[in-house]
């Protein structure tokens, strides 16, 4: 936070803050109430996961924060500003579940897209190369998306989201489509990237072990309409090691999350 930022003077400024957020989709038949009074905060530098059964509104929360959608009720701030202002200032990067790479662009060109759009492409080439190096794809800068595996594509998407040097990374089930082994590897990679870039990460997943392994805090969202059911601080040592998953502490966290989730699923 630079001193020039006027909002930085506020005490305990949240990177992302939702206050009593509600969301209703105006569908053709009955309006669909997806979120009800959702309140949560993500502190700068924190890794927070949003966990919940599919269809409970996790993606909707992320889309609201990213200003892809506008909430029906409540207030959202990103770095103390409205989501729209934050979007225009490129305060956050977004990683979609499917990598959403453009098929006609090489790896490097895909990573450069955000800079081309903001008009900074000329001085971004070096930064894009550095990020490709960070995600371990330096050798693949001229490959096309169809030549990359699912895990590689998602790493390109992460590099693309980071190229504008945002302080916040929003990730919507980025590893949901990957196989178990690749997913575990990508989790470790993500933690390494998070530590190297010092960003705030707000991460959507429906896997409790993934949420516990990655996060400082896990927020569980219930269904219909989605509300915060549990806000659980994960007090496990960092850097996290895969062996952690076999410990009793880890199992205790996942069990707590599962109990909350199971209670939720019965409601359907």
């Amino acid at each position, binding site marked *: 936070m630079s001193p020039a930022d006027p909002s930085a003077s506020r005490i305990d400024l949240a990177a992302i803050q939702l206050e009593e957020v509600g969301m209703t989709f105006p569908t053709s038949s009955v309006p669909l109430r997806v979120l009800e009074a959702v309140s949560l905060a993500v502190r700068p530098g924190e890794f927070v996961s949003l966990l919940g059964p599919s269809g409970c509104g996790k993606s909707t929360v992320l889309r609201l924060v990213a200003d892809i959608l506008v909430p029906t009720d409540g207030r959202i701030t990103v770095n103390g500003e409205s989501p729209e202002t934050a979007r225009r200032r490129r305060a956050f990067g977004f990683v979609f579940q499917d990598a959403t790479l453009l*098929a006609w662009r090489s790896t490097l060109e895909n990573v450069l897209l955000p800079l081309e759009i903001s008009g900074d492409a000329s001085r971004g080439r070096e930064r894009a190369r550095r990020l490709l190096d960070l995600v371990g794809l330096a050798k693949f800068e001229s490959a096309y998306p169809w030549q990359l595996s699912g895990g590689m594509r998602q790493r390109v998407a992460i590099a693309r989201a980071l190229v504008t040097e945002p302080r916040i990374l929003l990730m919507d089930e980025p590893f949901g489509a990957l196989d178990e082994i690749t997913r575990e590897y990508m989790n470790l990679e993500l933690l390494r990237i998070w530590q190297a870039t010092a960003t705030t990460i707000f991460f959507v997943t429906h896997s409790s072990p993934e949420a516990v392994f990655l996060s400082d805090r896990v927020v569980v969202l219930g269904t219909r309409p989605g509300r915060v059911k549990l806000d659980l601080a994960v007090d496990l040592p960092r850097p996290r090691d895969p062996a952690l998953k076999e410990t009793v502490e880890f199992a205790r966290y996942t069990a707590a999350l599962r109990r909350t989730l199971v209670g939720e699923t019965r409601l359907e």
Partner: protein
Amino acid sequence: MAIAAARQTPRGRVAALIRQFGLPALGILTILGYWELHIRLFSVPNYLMPPPSLIAVTLVEEWPTLERNVGTTVIEAVGGFLLGNAVAILLAVLFVHNRPMERTLFPVAVAVRTVPIIAIAPILVLLLGNGYAPKVVIAALISFFPTLVNMVRGLQAVETSALELMRVLSATKAQVFFKLRLPSSLPFLFAALKIATASSVIGAIVAEWIGADTGLGYLIVISTFEFRTGLLYATTAVASFLALALFLSVVALERLIVRWQPDTPRQ
């Protein structure tokens, strides 16, 4: 991957060449051989159907006549191809950005499509005279519709998440068009352009039947009336080569521009 690996060995490359060129050539040669043989065995009169060898001879002998006429048809077909596809592409861009415009104009486009081209050809000759104009317009009309439909589909065939990405990146409308919609529509566009090559040659020739004093269509009419069957077949062969040449030019252009593997399966 298996194909790519096979291409690297010399033997694999020869096999690939045979598959690409050898087999089609074999098919064509078989038909020509049977045609020649049948006419010689059953003594089919040449004025009804000449054998390929005679057509080849006529092609050489009558080349000055053919050469004098082919240029006209090339101008008409290529002119119609460019005009029809340019209008189709512009309309598609307009439709995608303006829904009411699409609602208004699409039925008109469909109406133009349903009128048989042979039926409007005389009307256009009446309206536009005996020169290039009616032929170019007819060739344009016939190649217009598939391109319009494909281009609209192509411009709309962008994933929701790609549009959301553009939104997150705060892209302008122009950026969304040039960086997302246009590139993703190109495979669709080229599929339509390939169809349009043959159509535009057909359009030009049909238009020449109605009223012309030069061109391949004119030559077809004259040689039919004068029972110059050899010339008729030779003209038809030239028309086919013309369509093929146009088609291959578009294929070459596509190879140059569409270098990626599109997500959408191609026909």
